[in-house]
Structures are given as structure tokens and as C-alpha cells.
């Protein structure tokens, strides 16, 4: 059986950062991602990132991914990478992980430590005909247009005015696609105000207190009906039919946590972090002594903080494996914790701070 010191599940911003950090202290790392390319959602982001210089603020997401790939390359003697390889199970009895490369090559890995950086999956909301092709997750639309250069459609209704809905609307316009409107059930946009201002000044209406009532079409989306709702989310009777061929759902993400459940990690349902998340200590270790968590899998947040969390988890792992000088590791940890606190310091970070307080433990040591 294949053996490794550190298995990192997921090659997005958190997983890449964890792998790089762990390898920088000499640990042997295996990095697996189910997608065809590494980088997770980062490679689809054409907008410039927020944060400070440490988070490469002002640099576009896909460029940050390129920088991470460069770091990965520099550590390649310590990092073995698998793409198109899905981790399908964790066996509690012996700590063995099962994987499928492509659709048919099945194999096992036995790692000493695991970082679960499995990311998130798109939520869907119920409405008639939501099954129709043309109702796509926002991440999928980004993949089509920003990774593969495929025109997703002609006219788009965006559902949700969080950061993803706002950013993807802007990206659709960059790809030459018409965004007919954005509906948001709340009475306020959920994403950064500046992202909303960007799309509004290019003529995209944002309908607050509106939701999608139904998709129209037989084999695929040929239109949508949106409706106004009141503060109790009940329809007011005001409706509008929109001529669209894509209904893009940006109604939130939920952490991908199946492997954490399988491993028996203590889990908490934390609405602020958008679902079930593993309880963790300050350095992202779960209740399972060999498993760490980082990024959206630990609670839905931003790529900037996912990268820092990944670094922290990577350090936690090398510390447990006995690599590196304790003072150096401690110094780096302190710096990363400061960065995280900065990123979460604002108004938008308040929810995250609350959520993390609900699933954090001081220490797993008895």
C-alpha cells in the first residue's frame, strides 16, 4: 500500500497552502484533488483580492493560484500531486484512505496525518423546474467561462447578492454575457458593497427582497419568473418574467465534510459557517488526533483566510510529526494567527468570528 506522511485532501487555496507549508519543513506530502487541475476556485477568480500585502491584495485570484503553483514546484521533491483523483473514504479502524483516480482506478493510501481541505459545495434552493439544464451553480458558470472559455449562455438571472453572486455577475459581463438582474431575498446585499457598486454602475439591477419563483422551460431554461417577498419571505404578489437562458445560483455554499464524519471527528452545526463543521483547536486540529481541517471545509469564508488556515494546518501537522524547530514553528503560527484576526476584523467578518467561537476548543489535550 502507498504510504505518505501527510495527505492533503483538496488542492484549492487551503490545501495548496497546507501542502507547501508542511513540505517547507521537510515533510513528505501527498496532495490529491478531484478536479482536472489544481487550484480549486482560485483559478477562476479574475477579480483582485482584498486583504493586505500578505494576502497578495490587489492581485487577481488566478494570479495568486499561479504563485502558489510556483511555490509547489519549488517543493516538488517533497510533494506528490494527484489530480482527477477523488478521496472516497476514510477507514477508522486502520486510518486507510480510499481513492479513485478518474472513474476506474481504485487504490488505498495510508497517511500518518491528514489535512482535510475539501472545500465546499453549492447550495440549491427549491423552486419549480430547478432541475432544468440552465440552472447552474455559480462555481460551474465560472468554470465554464473562466477556465475553459466556454460561453455559458446569452442572458443570465443571478440568484443571490453575496460576494459570489456579485463577483460572478461582473465576470459574466467580462465574458460578454448579459446579466439581466440579480435577486436577493434579504433587504441588503450580503457581499462587499463595492462589488455591488461595480455591477450596478454597469447597469445590472439588484432586486432586494426578491426571489426566483420558477424556471420556465421544458428541456432547458427558457425564462424565469422572479417575485417580490416581504420581511417574512412570503410573496407579495409582485412578479416579473425575465427572458433568460441561465439561472445562476449563488445562494451559498456548504462545507464538504463527509470524510470528517467518516473519521468520527466531533462535528458542530454552525449556521454562521454554513453547515456542519469539525470542532477544531487553534491550529485547526480536529478531535481526531491525526486530522486537521482548513479552508471552506472548516466553515465558509474567503480564499484569503483559507490560505492562512491552510498554512496553520500545515504547521500543526509538521509540529505533530516533529519537524522543524519549535520556536520557528511557533513564530510562524503567531504571525498567521495575527493575519487571520485582521482578515476577520471587519463588519463582514463578525459572522465568521461568532461561528468560529461556536466550534473552537482550547485544546484537545486532556
Amino acid at each position, binding site marked *: 500500500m502507498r504510504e505518505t506522511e501527510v495527505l492533503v485532501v483538496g488542492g484549492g487555496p487551503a490545501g495548496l497552502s497546507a501542502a507547501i507549508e508542511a513540505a517547507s519543513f521537510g515533510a513528505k506530502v501527498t496532495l490529491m484533488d478531484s478536479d482536472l487541475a489544481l487550484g480549486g476556485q482560485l483559478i477562476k477568480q479574475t477579480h*483582485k*483580492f482584498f486583504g*493586505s500585502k500578505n494576502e497578495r491584495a490587489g492581485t487577481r485570484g488566478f494570479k495568486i493560484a499561479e504563485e502558489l503553483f510556483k511555490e509547489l514546484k519549488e517543493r516538488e521533491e517533497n510533494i506528490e500531486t494527484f489530480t482527477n483523483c477523488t478521496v472516497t473514504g476514510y477507514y477508522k479502524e486502520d486510518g486507510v484512505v480510499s481513492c479513485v483516480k478518474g472513474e476506474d482506478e481504485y487504490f488505498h493510501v495510508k497517511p500518518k496525518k491528514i489535512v482535510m481541505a475539501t472545500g465546499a459545495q453549492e447550495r440549491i434552493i427549491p423552486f419549480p423546474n430547478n432541475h432544468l439544464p440552465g440552472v447552474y451553480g455559480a462555481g460551474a458558470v465560472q468554470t465554464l467561462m473562466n477556465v475553459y472559455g466556454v460561453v455559458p449562455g446569452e442572458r443570465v438571472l443571478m440568484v443571490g447578492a453575496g460576494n459570489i453572486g456579485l463577483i460572478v455577475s461582473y465576470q459574466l459581463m467580462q465574458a460578454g454575457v448579459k446579466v439581466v438582474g440579480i435577486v436577493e431575498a434579504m433587504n441588503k446585499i450580503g457581499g462587499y458593497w463595492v462589488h455591488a*457598486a461595480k*455591477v450596478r*454602475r*454597469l447597469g445590472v439591477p439588484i432586486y432586494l427582497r426578491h426571489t426566483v419563483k420558477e424556471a420556465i422551460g421544458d428541456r432547458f431554461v427558457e425564462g424565469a419568473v422572479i417575485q417580490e417577498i416581504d420581511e417574512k419571505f412570503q410573496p407579495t404578489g409582485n412578479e416579473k418574467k425575465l427572458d433568460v437562458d441561465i439561472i445562476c445560483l449563488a445562494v451559498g455554499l456548504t462545507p464538504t465534510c463527509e470524510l470528517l464524519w467518516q473519521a468520527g471527528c466531533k462535528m458542530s452545526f454552525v449556521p454562521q459557517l454554513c453547515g456542519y463543521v469539525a470542532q477544531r483547536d487553534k491550529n485547526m486540529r480536529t478531535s481526531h488526533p491525526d486530522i486537521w481541517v482548513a479552508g471552506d471545509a472548516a466553515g465558509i469564508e474567503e480564499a484569503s483566510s483559507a490560505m492562512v488556515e491552510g498554512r496553520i494546518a500545515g504547521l500543526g501537522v509538521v509540529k505533530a510529526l516533529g519537524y522543524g524547530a519549535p520556536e520557528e514553528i511557533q513564530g510562524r503560527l503567531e504571525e498567521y494567527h495575527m493575519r487571520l484576526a485582521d482578515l*476577520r476584523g471587519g463588519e*463582514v467578518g463578525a459572522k465568521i468570528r461568532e461561528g468560529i467561537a461556536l466550534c473552537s476548543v482550547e485544546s484537545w489535550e486532556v
Partner: protein
Amino acid sequence: MDEKEKLFNSGILTGERKGAIKPPKELWETKKNGLVVIECPQRIPCNPCHTSCPTGAVKPFEDINDQPQIDYEKCTGCARCVAVCPGLACFVIDLTWGAEDKALIKLAYEMLPTPEEGQVVDCLNRFGEPVAKGKVVKITEPMKDKTLVVHVEIPKDLVMDIRAIRVV
């Protein structure tokens, strides 16, 4: 909730707010090359406007979530922040530009088609409605990262309305 607050909640700036204030009138009217107008009315973790400012006009942030504060005396209208800001929330407006009834706005542009110098474009307000025609005077790419800074001559009475262009 009043109409103004509703609009603000959907991404339209209404009036002045912390992080979105006009430069002082007298200095603005006489400052060659213009002054920065930042529209960043929400506390978010972001500071490239400060770190990229070559003259220190965007004051240091105590907390990265602070909204930018500007020392207008130091602002040279160089538009580096316009090119860098991830929120595309920085604009430079030069009231000394051209004829009496004209002004110059320097804004970020990341769409297609790319305008050309001398071209007449639609100038859009915060709702994306065309409110005037404007002439593109100059196009730069300060960070060499494909964010263009487009200098457009616009009617002076619309400097607090026009915030985007559409190339037609």
C-alpha cells in the same frame, strides 16, 4: 427603511458616508491633475489604496478594516489607487481640466471592447444609465495587469454622478 437606505443596500451610494466623502471644495477646484474620490463606505479587510499610494495621501490604516482617510494636500491625482483597488472604488476627478464646463475623470475599466483615445463613449451614472457622452483623453495600464485607467472628459456638473463608461 427609507428609499435612500434601500438604494444604498443595493450598492448605490447616496450622499456622503464614512469612507465615501468628497474632497474639500477649494483645494479640489484648484488642484491640477485632480484629487482622489474614494467610495468605500463599508469596513472590509483591505488596504492596497494605502500601500500603493506613492505620496502617502491615503493615510496609514490602524486596522486593516478601516476605511481610507485621505490627506488631500498630498494627493497628486496619479490614479495608482484607481488601478489597484480590488473594489474599483477609487476615482480621480480633475476639476481644472479643459473648458470651464468640463472635468476629467480617471476610472478603472476591465471590460470589452477596449476604448481608444479620442473615442466618444457613454458615461454611466451609479445605476448604469447613460447620462452624458464623454471623450476618452488617455488610457493607461499602471500595474500592467490589464486593469485600464481611462481618462474621460465629462461635463463638470456630472462629476458626482458619472462612475463608469460604456464603449459603444
